[in-house]
């Protein structure tokens, strides 16, 4: 009788445990080396991101494989992306780390791009925020003051097809007369240009904003206007948790025009916002990777994100935003993939006519 109960107990345990963790089995990476392709140079934002993640992935992937960051810079990340597309085998041993600079040429249908995010499996994603600020000498203290504001503004830009699409299109939607000055090598030089008075409107990603712009605000040399926003779990753009007192870009639009933003311009802006900020950096598995391997990776990523020590890393070095693993990442990136072709076409057309560049 007792044996019978024991048997029942064991059977029950086996059945429940199998239903509870249905697919995280099979994939085991003992003794393997995983190559994580980063299409940027050592020391860049994406490289730092991957190096911060990799020891934790190493800890939580079954079999504790060695995770090696392989930098493959060139062509603004297109070369590394194309390499991944052509060469990566679906065995879970080659993964790819994308950034906004990788997603943008893809969305803009750059003819050099061979990679296709629609075919890959996303593992996890890291968001970042951006805060826009202005020179207070112009008489602007907050977004409200922008109503009917017609003075010419200058913005230090890296290029019309770079991440600067987000600020430039936002300025356009808000009806600001902003001249983009092209040729700056990134946000750092852009901020210095703002401090020099070479330009008078700028944005910084949140970590740089906290360390470099907040002191300027305290001295009265900068006035924060808005954040681009942050994605909530349902894919809506809400206020950035780093600056909860500032309106997000869609809110700012509403404050100025009394209605919610809509139309092809906003649809395109939102897709690019998700690709450039809401899910700026993401890890990908190649096409045709088995469900087992995908689930194993997503499970490991979820464990990394829950790790107390890693949470500290996120707070200190990754901007402090909640990291998105598995389903959250899939749902989030779907917004990038779902943007209608005509809205994308509208944006490409807008860049080509406004900035007189040829994209396609």
């Amino acid at each position, binding site marked *: 009788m007792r044996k019978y109960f024991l048997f029942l107990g064991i059977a029950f345990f086996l059945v429940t445990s199998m239903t509870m963790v249905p697919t995280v089995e099979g994939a085991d990476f003992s003794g393997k080396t995983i190559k994580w392709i980063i299409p940027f*140079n*050592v*020391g*860049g*934002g994406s*490289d*730092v991101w991957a*190096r*911060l993640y990799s*020891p934790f992935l190493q800890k939580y992937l079954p079999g504790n494989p060695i995770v090696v*960051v392989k*930098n493959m*810079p*060139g*062509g*603004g990340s*297109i*070369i590394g992306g194309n390499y991944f597309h052509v060469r990566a085998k679906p065995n879970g041993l080659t993964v790819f780390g994308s950034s906004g600079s990788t997603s943008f040429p893809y969305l803009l249908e750059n003819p*050099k791009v061979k990679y296709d995010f629609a075919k890959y499996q996303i593992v996890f994603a890291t968001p970042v925020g951006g805060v826009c600020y202005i020179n207070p000498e112009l008489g602007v203290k907050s977004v409200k003051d922008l109503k009917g504001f017609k003075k010419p503004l*200058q913005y230090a830009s890296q*290029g*019309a*097809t*770079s991440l600067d699409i987000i600020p430039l299109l936002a300025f356009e939607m808000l009806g600001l007369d902003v*001249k983009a*000055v*092209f*040729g*700056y*090598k*990134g946000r*750092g*030089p852009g*901020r*210095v*240009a703002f*401090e*020099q008075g*070479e*330009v008078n409107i700028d944005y910084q990603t949140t*970590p*740089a904003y*906290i*360390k*470099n712009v907040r*002191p300027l605000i305290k001295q009265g040399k900068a006035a924060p206007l808005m954040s681009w926003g942050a994605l909530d779990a349902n894919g809506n753009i809400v206020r950035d948790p780093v600056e909860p007192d500032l309106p997000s870009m869609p809110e700012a639009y509403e404050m100025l025009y009394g209605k919610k933003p809509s139309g092809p311009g906003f649809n395109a802006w939102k897709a690019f916002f998700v690709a450039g900020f809401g899910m700026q950096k993401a890890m990908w598995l190649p096409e045709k990777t088995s469900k087992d391997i995908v689930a194993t990776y997503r499970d490991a990523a979820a464990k990394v994100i829950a790790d107390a020590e890693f949470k500290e*890393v996120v707070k*200190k*070095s990754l901007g402090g935003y909640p990291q998105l693993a598995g389903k959250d990442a899939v749902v989030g990136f779907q917004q990038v993939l779902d943007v209608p072709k005509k809205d994308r076409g509208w944006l490409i057309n807008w860049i080509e006519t406004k900035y007189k*560049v*040829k*994209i396609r």
Partner: protein
Amino acid sequence: MDVVLQSLAVVLQPSHLLMLICGVVMGLSIGILPGLGGIVGMTILLPVIYGMDPHSAFGLLIGMVAVIPTSDTFPSVMMGIPGSSASQATIMDGYPLAKKGEAARALGAAFTASLIGGLFGALVLTLIIPIARPIVLAFGSPELFMLALLGMSMVGVLSGNKPIKGILAAGIGVMIGALGDAPAVPEYRYTFGIDYLIDGVPLVVVGLGLFAFPEIVDLLIKGRSIAEAATLGKGWLDGVKDALKHKFIVLRCSVIGVIVGFLPGLGGSVVDWIAYGHIIQTTRDRGKFGQGDIRGVIAPESANNAKEGGGLIPTFLFGIPGSGSMAVFLGGLLILGIQPGPGMVTENIDLIYTAIWSLALANVFGAILSIALSKPITRLTVIPFSYLAPFMVLIITFACYQATRSWGDLIALLLMGILGWVMKQYGWPRPAALIGFVLSDNLETYLFISVQRYGFEWLTRTGVIVLAAIIIGSLVMGIFYQARKSSKARASGERNGK
């Protein structure tokens, strides 16, 4: 002041000192290998520093980067091959000295100059931290464009008696620099559909192609050893004395080094040329330059070590790197959880002083170790070159391949090498081409920004006018001396004509 001494105590702890020495040894090795410089060193060390405490990590990284411009003198002097982009100008006079059998003297002078320059850089860094922000902010895009022009004006000096050839050579350099993606518009120039050309030709490839390749070919043709004299002449102690005798040159060029390192966006790879050009411009008896004048070694070597101290300033205070290696160092800061910015002066001042002490100590260790090494290494110059050549070809090929790790690097090296050899044969100044190449991006970007932003008004800015006056003054001075020199008896050899 307390913080300064506290940081010294931290730096002198055995664990930190060990890291520093590891960094120094690694930096010396990277410097000796031609073509490998600070960027490669930083790239190798970055994965190691994960989880390290920031003070030890600083010892390692800064120890490494501080001494590269010390040991990169070895290949520049002894083989005429730039050890890294910071010591290309050292070749001009260092290599002729080696040919005369005075390699030890050149090295001794170079290491002493490096040491003083490095210490001076650390000192300036200490003094300037509180007032650095306004100075950096005074240099907008128009001023940076003028500085790039100032660099270009050295071309005239470096092209000796044939200014037309110098200008044309610089033009070739600018054109090579324009290959690939344009700095301000989303366009690719002359890539012919070749992926390798998207990012342009790497500096390492151009530098080694123009300088190392022709040297190897010519030495093989002659079939001799590098030193033409059978015996090694004066020793390193004479070199030390030379450097001390020209202490004002050392100090002046250290100032140039700090300033060039300090200004973000100018790029450290021209500092040696600017120092070298400056010393020629301001010297009366300049007939011997290019044929083994010890001052031509001292000037660039003091400037390139001082540069590292200057380069840390924009990196720490603005989060914008002053050079390629500082860009990687910036990533290192982020890995350590440090976000650079103006707050560093208040929140992380201890780290800044750790960096400064590490810089100073590394320069001392680096110079001592290099002097100790110089005696055995100079013997390489008496070995018949046919034994050395295969090894040298291997090393420069390897170094070039590190640039982007694609076949394109090797093909580009061959093409640049042929160009360099042809230029050398026909007496076209290769330094001018290199300066054009290095500055092309700056010239274009800052001019483009200035005109977009200010129209023609940028020409009326005070900084622009001051810099324009300096450029014109130095050109006039150059022409004046040149005229006086040629009115005297014509010098037998031609500078750079070799």
